[in-house]
């Protein structure tokens, strides 16, 4: 795979002069205004900032869900601007895992079926998808809740199912937009511990949050204001190879 040939110290996510402008009638909203950002493989990054500062806009671009107005992005060394809709779908399926604030589980399917869904869309062979789905649910501590539907699970459990789903295809990057926004403090800690574990296993984690307690789990904090990076600070002991350029 092309991905594996990339050296460890080269960023797995890279953004150059990234802008996102929303047009609302005559008015323009600069959600992102010339953002340069590199995230190395294995980092745990927290993105913070006031409401409307462009955090989600950036996350959607990194997640290949949206296209920038200008600027360029690379995920695992591949320039997203050169990829087709299907290529982007495959990238989301294979390389990226999403966790949303609202969980976004399919209400009519049980936990097991929800987790298995990305495996069913996979185009490369990932082995026994049933076994993998079970494994992922066990990993998030829900091995005994496989046949529960989202309605029959607590918020924290639902978010864990969502995390299991994000992990199903063994992604290299986990993107979470306010994953604990709908959860209480205790459950928030459980979810963040889980994320930390996953990061220790080598998955790059990017989390958007308003809470310092959540950001404390991250090795690097990036603050946004008005579509720009205001500050980018790292814990000395967990900082990884930042500053590398593609």
């Amino acid at each position, binding site marked *: 795979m092309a991905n594996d040939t990339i050296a460890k110290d080269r960023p797995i996510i890279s953004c150059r002069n990234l802008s996102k402008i929303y047009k609302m009638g005559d008015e323009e909203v600069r959600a992102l205004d010339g953002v340069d950002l590199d995230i190395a493989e294995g980092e745990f990054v927290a993105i913070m900032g006031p409401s409307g500062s462009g955090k989600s806009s950036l996350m959607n671009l990194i997640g290949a869900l949206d296209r920038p107005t200008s600027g360029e992005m690379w995920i695992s060394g591949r320039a997203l601007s050169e990829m087709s809709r*299907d290529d982007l*779908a*495959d990238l989301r*399926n294979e390389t990226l895992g*999403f966790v949303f604030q609202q969980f976004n589980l399919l209400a009519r399917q049980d936990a097991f079926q929800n987790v298995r869904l*990305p495996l069913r869309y996979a185009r490369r062979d990932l082995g026994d998808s049933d076994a993998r789905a079970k494994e992922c649910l066990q990993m998030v501590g829900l091995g005994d809740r496989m046949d529960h539907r989202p309605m029959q699970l607590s918020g924290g459990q639902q978010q864990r199912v969502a995390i299991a789903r*994000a992990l199903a295809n063994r992604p290299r990057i986990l993107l979470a937009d306010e994953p604990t926004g709908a959860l209480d403090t205790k459950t928030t800690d459980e979810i963040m511990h889980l994320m930390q574990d996953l990061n220790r296993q080598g998955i790059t984690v990017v989390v958007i949050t308003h809470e310092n307690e959540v950001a404390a789990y991250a090795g690097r904090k990036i603050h946004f204001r008005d579509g720009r990076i205001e500050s980018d600070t790292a814990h000395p002991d967990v900082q990884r190879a930042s500053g590398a350029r593609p």
Partner: protein
Amino acid sequence: MKFGVATSSAAEALFSNPLRSLLTMLGIIIGVASVMVMMSIGEGAKAQIDKQISSVGTNVLTLRPGNMNRGGRNQGGGSGRPFAESDIAALTQLPFVQAATGTLSQSANAVSEEANWVSTIQGGDASYFDVNNWRVSEGREFTAQEVQSGAAVAVLGKTAAANLFPNGRAIGQRIRVNSVPIEVIGILESKGQSGGFGGDRDDTMVAPLGMVRNRITGGNRQVSRHVSGIQVLVQDGYEVLDAQEDITTLMRERRKIQPGEQDNFAVVNFADMIKQRAAATETMSMLLAFTAAVSLIVGGVGVMNIMLVSVTERTREIGLRMAIGARGGDILLQFLFEAIALCTLGGLIGMAMGWVGVFAYAQIANSPMMVSPIIIATALGAAASVGLIFGFFPARRAAQLDPIQALRHD
């Protein structure tokens, strides 16, 4: 594209809101049911008509006294001066006439040792069996000599035989027809029901013409040795319409009809009449086909509408599926399958209802039930096609959604 996900999510969507699915399917159900009834009636009618034509023969012309075509409508024969045996002899002289027989019939009360039965006695010449292509299955036909001598013999149709001789062994038995003792010499093969056209043709007794006239019906005051009708078998390969014309010319001459004067007889080709009636049946089934097509289209529009609603309702779900890696094609397939499944299920229900309709029609019209595999395939195929055609637009709309806009949808 991944068929597995598409099929399972289609089935799930279908049964998650059964009432809505059912209402959506209504047009398809009605459409498919009418396709089935229409095709079954059409096929049944066609089979019956083919059978009638083959039982009458396409190259047989029937002469009847009286004008049958007054004002373009069939007025029915029977009135007017009958024909004579000499007419048959003259017709037989025509080069294209292969055989001809007189006919003279009367309803008659027949009595055997076992039973009583009201039937029809049909007088005919020895060529009656040739002209009508009607053979005995048991015993023998009467001969020209027996016709000449006025022998008191008869060949029974299947129905008459069965009623007069419930225990079988009719051949050689004696019956009384309107008190005239007659010997049964044969039993005719079955011609079966002819669906309103002459009723049960097997309920008859065929006997030498002269004997029937002399001993049962009695003679005619104007015409000696009369017959009430003549059947002419036209040679193979000769145009029946030309034969009809030539026979008309000859008979006008013989009956001394002046030019400009109307015919007082009719030369009828029953196969033609049946074909005309078949055309009417065809028009009727075309009309039904049109109804079916319209309701399938209306049903299809209903399906399209509900699919568009469904796409809108499930925009977030579509966004989520895209976020975890579904391609546009996967989404397209999912909704297309849903539409096809909806229509096919409607088609199956419609088929069940159509079956009931066909069965009811068969009971009422006393016609055989015709539900061939072709009809089933056509009905189901039509339903699935409607799903494919009308499901495509909503499915494509779903597939072309922007992932992030779909995810943000509420």
